[in-house]
């Protein structure tokens, strides 16, 4: 069950650029979280912005009772977290949301990450490895500095394909370029998983559709509460059973959705 706790920061690693890895103590998240789930969190050091922010859980350590976030500082909420000192606490509710579901036996998991969207795939890779499922991680950014987790993923032995829009690292072009190359011409048994900017998710959904593959996408709407009550995070979803598209809260019915059900705007 998700728990609402004052979570102390227990470790902090600044990465180049606006990025950082933050590790918090939070027994419930450490024990129960699955890849694709997230926390709503806010540094107690900064009164504003006063709402918590959603961040994907990147890793957990159930033994130590901690979990780790991979953050990009983009505004006051994320920056206040990055500026925390070890020992300071954050209000933290989690784990929240629906996780990624492992592929059916025989199918390979292809994880497609754009920017900070790589965070949940670190954990998903660990889960898949534990279940001895084959997977491959496609990690794309605009330029080389936008791939701050590269080293950690290589050290972790993740099967990795890098790409950058400007070609400064890995395959030049969008992350769908190495993905399509990998999928090749013939029908490969795979499930696609995508987390990143909207346009990227949509592109992956199109790749999946064109090839008749299943795809799970993690959407990234603005969230107010994380628990299904503010109805600020709704996304347009039409499930096979729905007569017409419905606004559904991404925090409780997602953030991971079947790509076929998403009504792209």
């Amino acid at each position: 069950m998700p728990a609402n706790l004052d979570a102390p920061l227990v470790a902090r690693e600044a990465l180049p650029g606006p990025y950082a890895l933050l590790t918090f103590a939070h027994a419930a998240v450490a024990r129960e979280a699955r890849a694709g789930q997230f926390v709503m969190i806010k540094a107690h050091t900064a009164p504003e912005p006063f709402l918590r922010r959603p961040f994907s859980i990147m890793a957990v350590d159930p033994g130590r009772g901690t979990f780790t976030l991979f953050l990009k500082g983009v505004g006051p909420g994320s920056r206040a977290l990055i500026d925390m000192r070890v020992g300071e606490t954050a209000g933290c509710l989690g784990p929240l949301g629906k996780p990624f579901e492992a592929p059916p036996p025989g199918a390979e998991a292809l994880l497609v990450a754009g920017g900070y969207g790589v965070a949940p795939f670190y954990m998903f890779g660990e889960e898949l490895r534990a279940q001895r499922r084959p997977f491959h991680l496609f990690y794309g950014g605009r330029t080389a500095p936008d791939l701050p987790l590269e080293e950690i993923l290589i050290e972790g032995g993740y099967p990795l394909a890098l790409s950058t829009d400007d070609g400064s690292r890995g395959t030049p072009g969008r992350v769908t370029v190495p993905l399509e190359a990998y999928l090749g011409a013939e029908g490969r048994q795979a499930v696609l998983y995508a987390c990143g900017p909207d346009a990227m998710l949509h592109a992956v959904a199109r790749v999946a559709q064109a090839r008749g593959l299943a795809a799970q996408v993690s959407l990234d709407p603005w969230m107010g509460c994380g628990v299904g009550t503010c109805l600020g995070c709704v996304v347009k979803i039409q499930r096979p059973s729905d007569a017409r598209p419905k606004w559904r809260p991404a925090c409780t019915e997602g953030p991971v959705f079947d790509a076929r059900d998403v009504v792209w705007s």
Partner: protein
Amino acid sequence: MSGRLAVELAGLRLKNPLLAASGTFGYGVEYERLMDLSTLGGIVSKGLYLEPRDGCDVPRIVETPSGLLNAIGLQGVGVRAYVRDVLPRLERHDTAVVVNVCGDTVEEYAEVTRILEDAPRVDAIEINISCPNVKKGGMAFGGDPKMTHEVVAAVRRVTRRPVVPKLSPNVADIALFARVCEEAGASAVSCVNTLLGMVVDVEQRRPRLAFGTGGLSGPAIRPIAVRMAWQAARAVSVPVIGIGGIMCAEDALEFLIVGCRAVQVGTANFVDPGVYERINAGLLSYLDRHGLAGIGDVVGTLAYPGETK
């Protein structure tokens, strides 16, 4: 111990003066797994119409300095699904259940209330005549004394339960509206809903909310809400429920001191679901510190300059 926080409100006994405000706590059941719902004095449901509603397009919410601007547009399951699916699940929780009733017409308000009349678990009806995010009903009714009277009287006629109109702050004279409600048979008034506001995306040169305008809530509006609750409490003899920007025990105390019998906590639910425990603990320690027996001893104790109590 916790009997010290109990309050009487329009015939209801609440175990503490904290209710979850409409639209900020879902139908209550969403929080079942997160907290013990019986720590709440009561739960006010999300606004309910006769039929399910889709609500507004997105974006629906934007943060402002110490505030939140929303235009959800009362997305919801409709009163029948609420009675069928939600109310039974609330049976097991020891907390008051207040249903926030909406309508496009006076008749719809009455009809929704009538449907609730047969549901056993409902303790009171809150009449939403103050939602700024719908084209019909809502604020249009709550900004017009005549319509306010009509809606309240219509709902009053079809229920035996306490009827609590929720006032709009987008009026010049909140005391007038409180009095109109009292005259129309209200058992209490909730004070206040959100203030009409707009935030502009200057890069796109359009409102940030898809709906255009929205309702402002949160700590930003608290000084305005406290003033209005104070004016309403002086104007009527039915109880006033204070609402607006309550984040901690001190904030709740401001409303109680100016004369509110209970308060509702709205936006703070999004920030911290642990808010009720924190506030209740803070209220008890306040009572201890000030040597007061019960929370009722705080209500309406404001020493206003130049006035003697």
